């Protein structure tokens, strides 16, 4: 579904990703872990299409198509979704209105009619139950005055409504208390299926206790230095990143 080869990315002239190779098949959940500043969020943002990140080499193909050549909105319409670490607020635009606009933009791209108003209401009510969101939530301005936890729930709620093929979850667990974490993880798990893939970016193991990944990759200084299964994440939790750093091959050219 997603083929990343030798992806190199600069931000403000500084090299952040130094050649990432990653292959994600339909139905797989991959976790990206790594210490702060290793390039996790950069990877997520580049896949979603943020223009401030300059791709200097490599390629990303999504279902065979050149993802990097697509505008962010077209990536979304093709089925890529990113749950943000820090979702923005848009005052005066209700959650429901925003989601409907998003859903219809995606439907239009796929040659479908706009969703029927009643069908939409039913759809969001169903999905809201999944995350225990109440009715008033839909009428509130998009993330306007939301707590950190509400914002994260809203990201997963949007993901549930838009039903993307490929989900990027950027530090979705940060700022969640244990109950909210469980709810969000349940939401994510109900979306797992043979046709949907996920890339879970996280600093800590705790989300992965609930959303158990098929593969875990450790990102250090812009490179994937180790890959494994869910056990790798548990080891990291126990021993920290230090042992991996020692084990990892040293970069060939030392930085000044």
């Amino acid at each position, binding site marked *: 579904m997603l083929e990343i080869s030798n992806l190199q990315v600069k931000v403000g002239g500084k090299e952040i990703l130094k050649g990432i190779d990653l292959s994600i098949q339909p139905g797989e959940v991959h976790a990206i872990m790594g210490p702060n500043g290793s390039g996790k969020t950069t990877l997520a943002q580049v896949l979603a299409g943020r223009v401030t990140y300059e791709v200097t080499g490599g390629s990303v193909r999504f279902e065979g198509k050149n993802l990097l050549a697509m505008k*962010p*909105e077209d990536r*979304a319409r093709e089925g890529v979704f990113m749950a943000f670490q820090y979702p*923005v607020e848009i005052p005066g*635009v209700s959650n429901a209105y925003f989601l409907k606009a*998003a*859903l219809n933009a995606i439907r239009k*791209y796929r040659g479908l009619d706009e969703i029927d108003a009643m069908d939409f209401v039913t759809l969001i009510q169903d999905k809201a139950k999944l995350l225990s969101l109440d009715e008033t939530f839909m009428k509130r301005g998009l993330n306007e005055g939301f707590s950190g936890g509400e914002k994260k729930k809203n990201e997963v709620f949007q993901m549930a409504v838009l039903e993307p093929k490929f989900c990027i979850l950027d530090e979705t667990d940060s700022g969640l208390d244990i109950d909210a974490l469980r709810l969000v993880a349940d939401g994510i798990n109900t979306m797992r299926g043979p046709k949907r893939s996920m890339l879970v970016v996280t600093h800590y193991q705790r989300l992965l206790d609930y959303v158990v990944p098929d593969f875990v990759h450790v990102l250090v200084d812009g490179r994937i230095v180790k890959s494994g299964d869910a056990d790798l994440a548990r080891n990291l939790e126990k021993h920290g990143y230090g042992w991996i750093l020692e084990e990892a091959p040293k970069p060939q050219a030392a930085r000044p």
Partner: protein
Amino acid sequence: MVSKSAIQEQMAKQEYKYGFVSDLDEETVPKGLSEDVVRLISHKKKEPEWMTDWRLRAYRHWLTMKEPTWSNVRYPPIDYQDIIYYAAPRPKKPVNSLDDIDPEIRSLYAKLGISLQEQERLAGVAVDAVLDSVSVATTFKEKLAGLGIIFCSFSEAVQEHPDLVRKYLGSVVPFNDNFFAGLNSAVFSDGSFAYVPAGVRCPMELSTYFRINAQDTGQFERTLIIADPGAYVSYLEGCTAPIRDKNQLHAAVVELVALDDAEIKYSTIQNWYPGDKQGKGGIYNFVTKRGKCLGDNSKISWTQVETGSSITWKYPSCILQGDNSQGEFYSVAVVNNYQQADTGTKMLHIGKNTRSTIISKGISAGYGRNTYRGRVQIHKGATNARNYSQCDSLLIGSTCAAFTFPDIQVQEPTAQMEHEASTSKIGDDQLFYCQTRGITPEDATNMIVNGFCKQVFLKLPMEFAVEAQKLIGVSLNLEGTVG
């Protein structure tokens, strides 16, 4: 909500949709201003002597006045002798009914999207269409007359209802009020007049469509609305003008009078030609609008959506004279390219327990300059007066500017005042977020802007709210301002 695809389509089409010129046979007076021109205008309109005298007094006073310079707008000096002060389409025959109207004018209104017939039949809106100063047709007059409501052109009111006009003309905005009101008082050519008798609730929205067509003409319309005790009326005003390279002057005066328990709601969508992308041409919109809550428990509410004009200078205000009277001002002002707006309101609390609400939303893009200027005065004796003011600015891009000049004067210790202000910018973060949900940056901007204006749009009559939303999309020309 209007569908976004419709807005997009319109945006794609053109920058200023109403920029066509109709080739009408117009009757004009020579350029320039003098006592003779004032007399000529009055004569052409077959006005009674008192009206002519009033104009002349206004003119003589105007000569002693200086153009105001305190506002936060910049423009080259206006040559008042280089303006044609009167232009009327020459009718092929006298206008008795809608069917008699010049087909050119009819098609012009059709282009504007206000077919008079349609309006009459479907919308239940009575339209008094003012084209280059002369009222072309007043629809629904008979139906309204049955209720004792007078809705006609100002000229007609001068002829048919001189007592009402004499009693109230200049009672809210006297001719010595300010430079532009003085000029208007001398040369006003037409406008609308509405009178709703005691206890009558006007069953339909009264509506006027103003349009400047002839070249080098100034438009100086004068509107007077009177609501007798217990009456209610909602009035809508929409404005467009064709594209011209030269700046045109529009100096209107609107006076509202609400007696005991009466309510007047006045809504404006102003979409005069804003000038081109380099700031060439466009309307100078120097307008004095004021309402007087003369009676106890009366209410006057202004709602405006200002998207057009190269310069807007406008402060729809309320004099809250009656006890328990209420004033409201809801405004959205949009500037793009080189447009400048200096707009706001004055709320003068004189009566006891008077209340006022001010909600102002300024949107700036391109090189636009947007100024909110408001004055809230609580006079001595206006016990328990209350005011709530909120002015928010939204910036799009980094070359525009927003200013806020609130002025609060309180002479009464029992007053309760609240003032809130905010400035925000449509951020790349917001746009990117929307994009990752499949929404284009243009649609996202539209959505953010509409969210920002929502509080004001809710105050507009339904059809107007839809139009306002479309207009803002068009005037921000979103494809140009984002990414």
